């Protein structure tokens, strides 16, 4: 398994994406890039 460690968290008031590998892989790339989505 992959363990992700990252320090702290800061939000811009937009939806935060996820470092979890499974979440990234099941998300459509188009959804990540559409400006209105996030």
């Amino acid at each position, binding site marked *: 398994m992959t363990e*992700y460690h990252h320090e702290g968290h800061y939000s*811009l008031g937009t939806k935060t*994406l996820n*470092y979890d590998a499974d979440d990234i*892989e099941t998300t459509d790339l*188009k959804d990540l*890039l559409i400006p209105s989505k*996030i």
Partner: protein
Amino acid sequence: MSKVIQILKSQAASCLEKLSQCPEGSEGITDIINLMHVADILQKHFELTLALLQTDSEEEVEPTKQKFETIRSQYEGIRSKEDITIVPTKYVVVLFHDKLIVELTRILKKCFKKSWTTGRMQLVKDHDNIAKVKILGGRFEVAVQHYAQIVCFSKDDIFALPKSSPIWQELYKSTTFKVFLLSI
């Protein structure tokens, strides 16, 4: 995606305005102007990637690339939307969004601090955070320079495969990966 880039550019513009009015010299101005320029380039890359994904045929690909004259040469390997290497591109988009852009915006907000000088409150530069903008801005620029290579990454490479692929599943049985994403 462009929403977070707009927030970054807006914060950079605000910081630039304060820097230009600051009597302490021009430290940081060039770095922030460059940062805004790099953010514009990244936005073009994301727009082109999305436009390519939205094409319906190979004939639409070249005209789409021509709309992005300044970066189109980096996408010569893309002849159809199927040539886009999806898995690593998703990882790098998330890295830009959740890590680099968020971190840069956070530091830009901390480039000035309030200080009592000669009996009145005024904004003064936070030199440590201005130095961090330079460091992280450099990382951001290098990441943007390599973005197109990720989109055009070899599909035969193991890192182009989803983690659910048999090769990765076999590796997971005997390996532990530790990835450290450090903040500055």
